[in-house]
């Protein structure tokens, strides 16, 4: 069963196709201009795909990167707005989020810091009790401590309410253990689609003497050759190797960078 399914093309998206199960947490990663935001806009229904279709079961909330809100609204007005504009509205849930981060209700949106604005739009999104929450670079304006706290709170919401979370990010080093699914995009294409843990277990970096061919079976993601040394990042599924070669697992960041380098 999937709660989100997409198979779409759009000027900056080409044949992007995937299905996500309910309650899953998916990170969309990729370089600037790779189509992450377009994909989120298509999923949110703000953009029509040129061909293909998307299907999302349930209510969707989308927090765009620039966090559009009326600047002259006070925080309290934003919640009123949410109550009026949504058929389903959980005011307690929105208020609790604002309480947790001590957001003054009397301030106007234009007087808030970037981090505070982030909390207001997240409160607005969660108040609408979404089945699927789409976030474009949600953590960009938060400090490292707040980022961790927000991640913990969002994952708790996922756990308690069975919400499906999809977010884009540039900070690959922060998604281990957070996202169970990774979508890596480049030039509008889906380069990698897999479970985060499985991807880490499949990819192995083999380093050894100069060799024109990979020392193990499996798709080579990236090969690099020095004067006397070669290294192969192979999706080998964890094949062991004999000396003089050495093998090690790579970090998510190394994995992503290698796929992006190869994709260029």
């Amino acid at each position, binding site marked *: 069963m999937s709660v989100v399914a997409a198979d779409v093309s759009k000027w900056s998206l080409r044949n992007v196709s995937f299905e996500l199960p309910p309650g899953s*947490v998916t990170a969309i990663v990729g370089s600037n201009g790779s189509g992450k935001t377009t994909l989120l806009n298509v999923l949110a229904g703000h953009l029509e795909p040129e061909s293909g279709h998307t299907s999302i079961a349930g209510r969707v909330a989308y927090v765009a990167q620039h966090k559009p809100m009326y600047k002259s609204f006070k925080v309290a007005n934003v919640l009123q707005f949410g109550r009026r504009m949504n058929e389903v509205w959980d005011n307690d849930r929105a208020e609790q989020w604002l309480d947790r981060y001590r957001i003054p209700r009397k301030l106007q949106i234009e007087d808030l810091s970037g981090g505070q604005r982030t909390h207001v739009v997240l409160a607005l999104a969660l108040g609408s009790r979404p089945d699927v929450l789409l976030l474009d670079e949600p953590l960009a304006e938060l400090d490292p401590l707040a980022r961790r706290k927000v991640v913990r709170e969002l994952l*708790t919401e996922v756990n308690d309410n069975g919400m499906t979370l999809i977010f884009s990010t540039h900070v690959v*080093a922060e998604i281990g*253990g957070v*996202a*169970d699914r990774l979508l890596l995009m480049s030039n509008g294409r889906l380069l990698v689609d897999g479970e985060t*843990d499985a991807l880490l277990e499949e990819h192995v970096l083999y380093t050894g003497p100069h060799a024109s061919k990979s020392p193990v079976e499996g798709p080579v993601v990236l090969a690099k050759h020095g004067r006397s040394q070669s290294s192969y990042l192979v999706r080998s599924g964890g094949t062991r190797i004999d000396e003089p070669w050495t093998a090690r697992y790579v970090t*998510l960041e*190394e994995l992503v960078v290698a796929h992006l380098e190869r994709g260029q």
Partner: protein
Amino acid sequence: MVEFHVDRGSGFPAYLQLGQQVREAMRLGWLQPGDRLPTVRDVVATSGVNANTVLKAYRELELAGLVEARVGSGTFVKASLGSAAPEDLDPLRVTFAAWVAEARSAGLEDEDIYALVREVLSGGAQ
């Protein structure tokens, strides 16, 4: 109670990190048979780890016969790990802590110490 810590940048999958931390706590006697592991929600809320990751870690420990899930009441430690009795473990820890202090004052970093321990354990330094 174990407190989980996940190194997000690590190449070691998060669910395996959690499993390893439970195993270590069992070896060190912090977790005994009959003890309850933290609920999935607690781990999610305190460590910022995805619920699916925690469930996967607990399932893996269950398959290994180390813990058992009791419907409605949680996941409990079933087996004991490690062959040392606590009264043997304590003096060894004291000696080892002194050794680590000596190694650090000689300028060794954690990675150097791990490498040295691995080398000695594998018998490579004979």
